Every structure is written in C-alpha cells, then in structure tokens.
C-alpha cells in the first residue's frame, strides 16, 4: 500500500514528565490502546504469521476449501529457489529497482536544484505542477499512460512519427516486453519524482546561503559546490529518500498489475507480481506465500547495506 506520508511532526520516544493523575484509575491507558492492539494483532500480525505458516505447508485449492493443510518443511522454498524462473524474476526485480531508483534520484536532484534557482513565478508554477503529479491517483495514472501510448490514437506515437521516427506509426507498445517495461519505468519515475524533488527542495532551502557564497568566492565550480557543500549537508535526507524509493519501487504492484499483469511474456513480472500470480492464477497459495516471504527477505538484504552506510555516516558526523 502506498504510504508516502506527507511531512509529519517527528515523534520522540521519550516519555512525558511524571505528573499527578487526579484519581485516574491505572487501567485507563490499557483500555485506550486495546482497540489498536487488537486491530494490529488480528489485521497485521496474524496475516503475517499465517503467511509464513502457509509457506511451510502444502496449501492448494483442496486445502483452501477443506482445510487441514499438512506441513511439508522447506519444500516450497526448495521449489522456489530451485526454479530458473524465480531467479529470472529476482534479476528482473533488481534491474527494475535499480533503473527506477537511479532515475528518480538523479532527476529529482536536478529538479530540486533547478527549482531553487528559479524566479518566484516560475518556481511556484513548477512546484504546483509537481504537486499535481503527486496527487494523481495510481489508477488514474495507469489509465492515462495507456491512453498516451495507445497505438493508433496515442499522442506519443503521433509525436514520434511527426519528428521523423516513422516506424512508430501505429506501434503497439504493450505487445512488446521491453517497450512495456520502459513505459512502466516512465510511469513509476513520473509518479515518484514529485515527492523526492519536493522533499529535496525543502532540504535545500535549509542550507545557509553563506556556505554557497563562501564556496563560490573560493572559486568552486557548480559541480564542486554540489559535491562538497550541498550533498554532504543533505546526506541524511538523500539516504532517507533513497531507502523510501527502494522500498516503494521494489514492492510496486498496482501499476504493473493494472497495466500488464506482469506481461507480455512475463517481461514486467517482478517479485510481488510473481508471488500473486503463483497464488491466484495457479492456486499455489503455499508457493506464493514462500515467494512473498523471500521477497521481504530480499528487500531487507538490499536495504541493510544501504541503511548501515547511512547510519555510519550519521555516526561519523557527530
């Protein structure tokens, strides 16, 4: 689920100072958190545990209807890890994540730096444009992109044909694996850049102007200013946004499912799509659950070195 939360007050974990409670029964706080605890237990932890349990069982259509699934140990994991298809999907997911995150970070950095240098009116216009893109619901965006890249009436094919690429006259983008993959990348980058660019721009405005002036007086080029002033100052923010984007792109499901359902010929099947296909189309709920669990583990493996580097740098600064 998309949880690109807007900025929110930072919550510190320190308890409030001790205060007198006028005749307040000690039971009250527990009564107040019961609904939250019950909801989290039943709607989050129980499904999570259930998913892990199913991944160790034989759980197909029969078990779904009759119940009584038997434990089969690591069989599903053996099946997943032993199939060439699974590893092809893993590779594709890593490429998908890498391409998207690199594009998102580079473009949003450039956009943020650019916005900081614009005059007031143009800056407001660009910021408003970014907010509009950010506000576009995923399913509206997928529908729009299908229309933009429509083969006969799509405006993209018209544009490409007009500027001289006549082979795009009536080209069917969604029949070709690489083309569909490219459109999915375009869509996800288009949707993700606003959040990253707006946050980076907000970060940029907090850097004291004196630092830039001092660097310029020392004769630093634009690239040197970015490398030695801007980037070090914003390193924690860069780290945070990169991890959020990695998570978001890696587990991206709705865009892919709505446009191509993983096709054509599996060209856009990433791990979350694959897990869902295996479970819902092949009715192998056990294997699908195993792939889901592996997906979360792989995401952690991708994230951990990145998070460690982030914390090491933050530690070194102090």
């Amino acid at each position, binding site marked *: 689920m998309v949880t690109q939360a807007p900025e929110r007050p930072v919550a510190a974990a320190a308890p409030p100072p001790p205060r007198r409670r006028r005749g307040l029964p000690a039971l009250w*706080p527990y009564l*107040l958190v019961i609904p939250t605890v019950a909801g*989290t237990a039943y709607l989050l932890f129980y499904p999570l545990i259930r998913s892990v349990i199913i991944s160790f069982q034989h759980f197909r259509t029969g078990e779904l209807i009759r119940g009584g699934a038997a434990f089969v140990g690591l069989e599903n994991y053996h099946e997943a890890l032993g199939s060439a298809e699974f590893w092809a999907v893993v590779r594709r997911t890593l490429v998908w994540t890498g391409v998207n995150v690199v594009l998102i970070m580079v473009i949003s950095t450039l956009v943020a730096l650019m916005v900081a*240098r614009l005059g007031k009116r143009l800056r407001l216009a660009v910021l408003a444009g*970014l907010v509009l893109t950010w506000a576009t619901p995923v399913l509206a965006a997928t529908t729009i992109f299908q*229309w933009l890249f429509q083969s006969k009436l799509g405006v993209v094919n018209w544009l490409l044909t007009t500027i001289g690429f006549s082979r795009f006259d009536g080209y069917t983008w969604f029949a070709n694996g690489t083309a569909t993959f490219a459109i999915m990348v375009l869509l996800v980058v*288009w949707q993700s850049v606003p959040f990253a660019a707006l946050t980076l721009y907000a970060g940029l405005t907090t850097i004291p102007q004196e630092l830039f002036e001092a660097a310029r007086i020392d004769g630093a080029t634009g690239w040197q200013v970015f490398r030695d002033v801007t980037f070090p100052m914003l390193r924690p923010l860069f780290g945070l946004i990169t991890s959020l984007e990695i998570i978001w792109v890696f587990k991206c499901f709705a865009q892919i499912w709505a446009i191509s359902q993983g096709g054509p010929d599996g060209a856009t099947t990433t791990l979350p799509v694959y897990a869902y296909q295996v479970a819902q189309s092949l009715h192998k709920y056990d294997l699908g659950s195993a792939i889901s669990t592996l997906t979360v583990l792989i995401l952690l493996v991708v994230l951990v070195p990145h998070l460690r580097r982030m914390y090491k740098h933050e530690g070194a600064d102090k």
Partner: protein
Amino acid sequence: MIRRLPITLAALSVLVVSVFPVYWMVVTAFKPTRDIQADTPQFLPLHPTLDHFATAIGSEGFALFWRNSLLVSLGAVLLSLVVALLAAFAVARMRWRGRKAFILMVFIAQMAPWEALLIPMFIIARDTGMLDKLSMLTLIYFMSTLPFTIVTLRGFLAAIPEELEEAAQMDGASRSAAFRKVVLPLLAPGLMSTSLFGFITAWNEFAFANALIIKNQDDRTLPVWLSSFSNVFGTDWGATMAAATLFMLPVLLIFLILQRRVTSGIIAGAVKG
C-alpha cells in the same frame, strides 16, 4: 536574460512533463469523439462537450462503485480516527508500563510489508466469510492508515500544553469535558490532515480491492472498475478519460484543501509563537 534561457527552458519542460498527462486526460474527456480520433491531435478542446461525462456516469454501476469507494474510505478513516485518538491520548498524556513497547509496535506496524499480505488476507477473508465484503476492505484500509494516524496525532497532542487541560479542570471541568472543549478544537487541524491523508490512501487502493472482491462485482470499488475500463467502454477513450477525471476529482480537491490548511496552520503557529 540569455544566461537565464537554459534554466527557464528546463523549468518549462519539467512543467510540461508533469502537467501534460493530467491535462491530456481532462482535455480528452471534454473533446467530442471525432476530435479525439482526428489524425492530428487537437491540444485544445475547441468543441467542448459533456457527452463523455454523461456516458461515464450513465455506465452500469458507476454510481454504485462511487458509493462503495466512498463508504469504504469514509468508514476506514472514521474508524482509524477514533481508535488512533484513544491510543494517541494514552501515549501522549499518560504514563504506564508497556508504553514503550506499544510505541515500538506502532512503528513496526507502520513499516509492514502490505503487499506480502495479499495471499493470507485472501485466505483469512475466505475462511471467515468476509470475501466479497466491503467491510473487509474497510478493516484493511483502517489498519493500513492506523499507525500513521497514531504517530501524527500523538505529535499534534504533544504540542498542546497539558497546562491548558489542567486549567480547565481547575475551573471545575471534568477530564473528558476538558479534553472535548480545550484539546479537541486545538487538535482539529491535525485530525483534518490525517483523515484526509487516510481518505486518499483508501480511495486510491487497488491491490486488496482487486484481490478480495471477486465474485460479487457489485461490491467493486472505483480503482478496480477503472482498471477494467476496456471491458466497460471498449475503445471509447473519451468516456474512459471522463471516468478517470471523475475518479481523480475528490483527491485533487483534498490536496487543495490540505494545502491551504497546512499553510494557514504554519502561519497561525508563527503568529502565536
């Protein structure tokens, strides 16, 4: 002037790339079909028409799916608001054993891998007779917005000085009256922005709505319906874009409201501070 040219061009191209897709959706929705199918695309709606909106609204089930989406989103937001307010109050205003563990649980819940829950949720819904039920979706959306709502409301609550409540209580108000009359009005902007954010999350959700509403097509929500537009409208792109516009409209309105709220909140804070 000439030195500014490259950056101005860059800014304009960013503007075009970010705005054009949405602009194209709206323009297509307002163009008559013969203009949509013209050999050279018409970038302005020269003959604006509401026909496509009429087709979209008149299509089978549209009102029903709007109602479903609205019910599910509002239900989830209200539930999450009430439950989160109770929890945020306990965390921000009370000291009790297990408080830290509770906060940790909320943070973990905030990072939950929801996409990995599609399969077990389907199985649990099936086992408990909740498949094809809007109430199941409401519960899932409630849970997916709850941690964020608790964390945000707790931040807002912590920013309201406890002395205000105590003063009201000194004046003879009960604790709950003090909360209702003093804290709640101050909390309004926080409640507003968290609930609007939660509403957008629920309104836009696709994966669970797609996985859990299978047989009873009347219980579908707008995103799922929109994803099957080619079954509904065929190649009628005008109607499809009108439907997408109508789907996006509430979200856009909320963004506008939120923007004003957030800015006015910042200004109010600066004046008072």
